[in-house]
């Protein structure tokens, strides 16, 4: 069925770039059509009726007109401005990271309501001063991977299929899950390269990953991870994501800079 010439849409702005004289090219995440790129005509003029509504991370209601290649926004109205989020530099840094993750993993013209809701909720939580943004980032990564079909296997061994014992195990990025020590030790050579990149996974890290992967944010938000456990799952997820995207995420660099007070001090003393 052909779409109407004018249609309504709810969306979150993931990315924004300048195009033409005063227009903006927006990358949106929508519930019904996945990732979508549209044009906001004249949005860079101060008197534009759209400019304030098509800011990054906002949830908006749009009226769009079908264009030849990209559709054009005719009306825009803000549903959630993420005001508290935008007043805090660190949280903006994390919002950029979540938006970049979604931009990289979401498919165009592919309905994904769960992903839309995850991002919408995560941006709302991020604006809450009580939220630990680092924990939210890990929670978001695991749930995003589930919604886009790259869920890491944490419960049974990827090789033998037996339930994972509560001991130190292994994790293989290329296999996409946990391998038990027995399989890694006895079959390292035989599992056609599967176990070659296996690295140890501590019991605490495995428990933390499982918890974050299966629980809702309301349960997870109160969790306190030790620095060592967090560092382990952060590195593991970072490498897992980079492996599937076949590239590194740009916003991670900025997050690192924000997280280290030493970087700021060093800059000052230069």
């Amino acid at each position, binding site marked *: 069925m052909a779409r109407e010439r004018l249609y309504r849409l709810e969306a979150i702005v993931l*990315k924004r770039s300048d195009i033409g004289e005063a227009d903006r090219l927006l990358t949106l995440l929508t519930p019904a059509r996945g990732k979508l790129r549209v044009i906001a005509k004249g949005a860079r003029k101060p008197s534009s009726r759209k400019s304030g509504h098509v800011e990054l*991370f906002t949830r908006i209601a749009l009226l769009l007109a079908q264009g030849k290649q990209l559709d054009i926004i005719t009306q825009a109205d803000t549903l959630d*401005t993420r*005001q508290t989020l935008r007043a805090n*530099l660190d949280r903006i840094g994390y919002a*950029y990271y979540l938006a970049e993750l979604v931009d990289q993993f979401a498919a165009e013209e592919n309905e994904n309501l769960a992903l839309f809701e995850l991002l919408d909720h995560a941006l709302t939580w991020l604006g809450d001063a009580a939220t630990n943004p680092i924990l939210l980032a890990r929670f978001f990564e695991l749930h995003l991977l589930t919604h886009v079909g790259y869920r890491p296997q944490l419960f049974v061994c990827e090789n033998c299929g037996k339930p994972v014992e509560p001991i130190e195990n292994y994790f293989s990025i290329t296999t996409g899950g946990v391998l038990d020590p027995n399989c890694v030790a006895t079959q390292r050579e035989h599992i056609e390269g599967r176990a070659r990149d296996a690295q140890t996974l501590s019991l605490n890290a495995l428990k933390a990953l499982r918890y974050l992967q299966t629980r809702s944010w309301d349960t997870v938000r109160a969790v306190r991870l030790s620095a060592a456990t967090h560092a382990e799952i952060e590195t593991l997820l970072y490498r897992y994501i980079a492996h599937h995207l076949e590239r590194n995420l740009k*916003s991670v660099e900025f997050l690192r800079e924000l997280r280290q007070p030493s970087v700021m001090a060093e800059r000052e003393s*230069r």
Partner: protein
Amino acid sequence: MDTTPRAVTRLIEEFHRLPGIGPKTAQRLTFYLLRAPKEQAQALSEALAHLKERITTCAICANIAEENPCAICRDDGRDRSIVCIVEEPLDVLAIERTREYHGLYHVLHGAISPVEGIGPDDLKVDELLQRIKHNPGIMELVLATNPNVEGEATAMYLERLIKPLGIRMTRLARGLPMGGDLEYADEITLTRALEGRREV
């Protein structure tokens, strides 16, 4: 066999490399210049040559200029205690047009945008810090980055970096644009407009 003279195809190719110019526009511009008086083509070529030969970056404010330091930084009539921080050289022009600002400038050449991989290191932030350090006469910094997420992030980053040095920092007011319509204003703009309302 291509019968178009080499000089013509070369100009078409050069035009085609410019942003927003497609093959047809490139051809039209070339054939327009071919028919135009010689002086016009010469004026264009001179202007292009001077652009790269004569324009330099001001060592103080990082604005584009014909001389170093630039005319604004050399002007004794300007208030040296106040520095306005903008994203682009075009923003300097926009503020100068108001004739309301008499201080100096600092051009960052961009704004923090993690998604495009633009971090503080890609902007003239270190130059700004050095400038503040070597000019104790600077009393106020006006943060005039764009009122969008990138500009706000840049302003907040600079605030975090410079505020401990004890310099007064101000941010351009945000509110309703002239010729705008209240009903189309977004919530953040309206909130800021209410916060900054004035006695009449």
